[in-house]
């Protein structure tokens, strides 16, 4: 069963760049802190609004211990707001493409995934077929600003081909 989501700017921007924002539509709720909403509006205005995205704000400040972690790991205001929101939604999935935010949230016990996970999940949920996801993976370097090492992307591609018996 799908879990509620707290979403950072990266996946919203990257999925929109790939024409795949609809892949988020089957989560029961997707909360976007207003600072993140503003960030996405600034960098990718076409991504917002969407009927399945809920702007949440203002978000209460994170606890002092979390604030210290945010500073130590150079997390921005949007990422800190996501962590604050997650503190009240321990069952939620946190979607982010930022490694530092992911590291902090993971160590706080939250389930964290990123754009790549959402793309592959779409096969499981029936929104895309393996060939379509393969094409999206191939388009990441040219159509999106998501940075992923090419060797790593090739590994993901290889895993997908292996999983579904596709000749790469």
């Amino acid at each position, binding site marked *: 069963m799908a879990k509620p989501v707290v979403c950072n700017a990266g996946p919203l921007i990257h999925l929109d760049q790939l024409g795949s924002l609809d892949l988020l539509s089957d989560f029961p709720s997707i909360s976007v802190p207003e600072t993140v909403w503003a960030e996405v509006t600034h960098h990718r205005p076409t991504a917002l609004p969407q009927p399945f995205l809920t702007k949440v704000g203002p978000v209460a400040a994170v606890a002092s211990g979390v604030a210290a*972690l945010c500073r130590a790991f150079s997390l921005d205001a949007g990422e800190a707001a996501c962590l604050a929101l997650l503190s009240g939604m321990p069952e939620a999935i946190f979607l982010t493409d930022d490694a530092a935010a992911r590291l902090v949230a993971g160590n706080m016990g939250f389930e964290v995934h990123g754009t790549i996970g*959402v793309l*592959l999940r779409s096969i499981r949920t029936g929104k895309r077929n393996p060939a379509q996801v393969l094409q999206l993976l191939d388009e990441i370097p040219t159509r999106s600003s998501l940075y992923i*090492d090419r060797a790593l992307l090739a590994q993901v591609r290889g895993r997908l081909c292996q*999983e579904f018996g596709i000749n790469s």
Partner: protein
Amino acid sequence: MATVKVDLPEQLHEQLRDFVAHGWFSNEGDLVQEAIRRFLESRAPELMSRFIKEDVDWGLRGNG
């Protein structure tokens, strides 16, 4: 600037003090900051690799 309080094993703290005493860093806080920064920089590719693998597993076989 945030303050993070950590407990260090005595041996590690001695090593840290030695670095400061020998002039490599002006104080223990600067050394710890540099250590965290270097850890994050050096581990970034490794972390990304781990995160992407987790994403693939969740995407293909996870629930939720």
